[in-house]
């Protein structure tokens, strides 16, 4: 019986180890996450502004698509959360699907960047 239990413990630990090997080899480094959300904007100039604003501390890459208006960011989930990126983007004048930009900041945007605002 005693040996049986040790055998059981051994199996349990063994399983833990086998388990670890079955985990997917992450292609993004550990902790790096992706999120996508809508950012309102018009042109290439907007793209530059949005991507620059989005790259706050903890954000590794930021890519905004002019056609779909979707901003994709990869970020370290332990250092930053998407809400901060929403705020950072809105701070330079672009509405997101969660945070609306300040009217004055929006008004100061270049004429070609005067996108139709979020409802």
């Amino acid at each position, binding site marked *: *019986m005693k040996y049986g239990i040790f*055998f059981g413990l051994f*199996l349990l630990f063994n399983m833990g180890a086998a388990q*670890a090997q*079955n985990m*997917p080899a992450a292609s*993004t480094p550990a902790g790096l996450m992706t999120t996508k959300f809508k950012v309102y904007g018009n042109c290439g100039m907007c793209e530059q502004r949005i991507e620059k604003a989005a790259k706050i501390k903890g954000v590794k890459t930021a890519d905004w698509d002019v056609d779909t208006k979707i901003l994709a960011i990869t970020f370290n989930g332990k250092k930053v959360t998407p809400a901060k990126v929403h705020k950072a983007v809105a701070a330079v004048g672009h509405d997101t699907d969660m945070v609306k930009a300040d009217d004055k900041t929006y008004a100061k945007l270049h004429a070609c960047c005067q996108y139709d605002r979020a409802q």
Partner: protein
Amino acid sequence: MKNIFYLLLGVLVSLHTVAAQQPTALLMGVVTNEKEELLVGASVFWKDTKEGTVTDINGRFSLPLRIKQATLVVNYVGYTPAEVEVLPGENNLWVEVTGIRQLQEVTVQGKGFDNHLSTLETRNVERITSNELRKAPCCNLSESFQTNGAIDVTYPNALTGVKEIQLLGLRGIYSQFLVENRPTMTGIATPFAFEYIPGSWLSGIVLAKGASTVKNGSNGITGQINADLVKPQTDKPLFVNLFTSTEGRGEVNIHLNKKGETTSNGLYLHGSAVNNTWDTNSDNFKDSPNRRQLNGMYRLVYDGPKGCAQFNVQALTDRRQSGQIRENKFGQLFSIDQHNDRLEMWGKYGKEELFGRQFLELGNIIGASWHRTSAVFGPNNYRAEQKSLYWQTLVQNIIGTTNHTIVIAPSIQYDDIQEFVNEGDLSRRETVAGLMGEYTYSRPNLDMEMPDLVVVLSGRVDWNSRFGWQVTPRMSAKYNFTPKSVFRVSAGRGFRSPNLMAENISLLASNRSFRFASDIGVEEAWNYGVNYTRDFKIARRDANFSVDLYRTDFVNQVLVDVEQPPTVFGSDSTFSVSFYNAPGKSFSNSLLVYFQYNILKGLDVKLAFKWNDVRAMFADGNLKTQPLVAKHRGLITLDYATPAKRWLFTTYVQIVGEQRLPDNSALPHRYTHDFPVTTPTFGLWNAQVTRRFGQKWELYAGCENITGYQQHHAIIAAEEPQSPFFNGSQVWAPMMRQIGYLGIRFAPAGL
């Protein structure tokens, strides 16, 4: 025993294969709302397929990746579904859903009852919220079950003031008491354990009925009571509570909290005193002990990128004095004086995403405590000191997908108890080293947006230095017919090491002799139960119905037999208390039916009915009902809150059915005429009003035992404390008539 072990082994081996068969490419992620709160039970699936899953209790999901670009749909009740294009190479997503889709009214109506029986939990769990706790004076944990149908609180011993709880008709010692998932107040601290957690410290109580998790040991036979305490990061910066009652009780609670970016700390102070000379039945014995308690706790919590850690210290000193008020004609005074001092420290450390693996979690608990009791019960004295250590490490991971999770936790509990009753030495040391494993399978149901079937298989293997190997298998499962109706089953074994003297300390207030059988062993029982819970609407108002049926079958129970015939020597007779292993069957059957209904806006009614059948074969060869357990119990509660919650009214009636008193037939009749064979059924009525003034102040006042129902004589042979018949343990109703109370709560930053 062996068979069970192999069964467990088999389960583990088959898990192994399950794990091996999982595809390796997984998409993982979390789902949050716009406030970045993790959403539990959100459905996540590939568009135009049935391939998907549901987020777990941490808001996380995992499912097999698509080879090409594909659209992921995330759905959560009340939110606009989110669609995310997932490109190859993206495997760790953060999805936010936005916009409350439904009308505001729905959210308001879904506020739920304060004492909610969930249809979502796997185990039969009742969550007692802080709102519920505010409906009764709740000076401490033992008083917080007054408006609860599942747990019964017995009336305090007439001499020592010790109260007990009962769960499933069995003494509270058969359930496991945890504070924030850590076993505490064990051994010699048992008699007053619940009184050492002041009511204002409680942020909620989770009551799990039946065979529950074995994460914290194998001793929760009838269930688990887990008290959650206030935390420095969420509690108010300053909170003051003052309380006074006609029992002569005064109480002060002060909380001070400082919340930081990552580090928060809090100091919680409690002081209470009861001073009175109440003797409503004129038996020259105080109706309730004079008490004074000073209790303090300090909490330091860190929550940041390095994980989650906390350090806590609790220190308390408690004194209770009771007994005779005036000397008798021989100049003797029977007095009881109990001192307790305790110091406890505990720490926790937890980390998610260990080694960068999103679902791998680690938790550590370390605790150390010291407790000293010294007490005098008339001619008897009791001294005890206990040093305890506890360590547990818990690792949690998924197997393949979040539909399979596994927990493995080794632990060690060490108790060094020095215990002396008069000249008798009951000292002992006990080490329990064990390993637990728990596997959970959840079957996601995309239409219900939650798992409909969850099966938990768990077990632990412990080595106990006093009683040898102990194998504790447990299982529980739930099946949701709809998200609002659930059926549950549970079964499992439990062990507990008896602490005979501490658990029956009130019996020392007598002239009985104590007899311990030489072969007293570990207590062991199996518990089986079923539950059905359903949320529904009657006339468009929320209702909740639940029925529980549990059976506990003891393999070995240590009986406390106070009914053995006295030894007669000439004209003297000596009564005894015998402790021995039950020679035959010993069991408890318990049925609980529960109904809650929101009759009108703000008005909730709660009805509970309970039937207990608790019997054991005693040494005399008879299968007898355990004394002082009511066969039937009922509870009716009415709560009303005005729309702005300025006024809160609560009233409840407890109905206590017949109880068998221990056999008093060997006593002269003149002592026992007030102690019937079975006690009458009676009701107790309590009420409380709470008034809130602005955001900062709250005043509450109430009355317990409004009708003044009372047990007139609670002490047998009260006039002759030196006689063999003297006994204060047969209390079946309150000894105090109406008790009025008044309290205030104040928090400058808002309650």
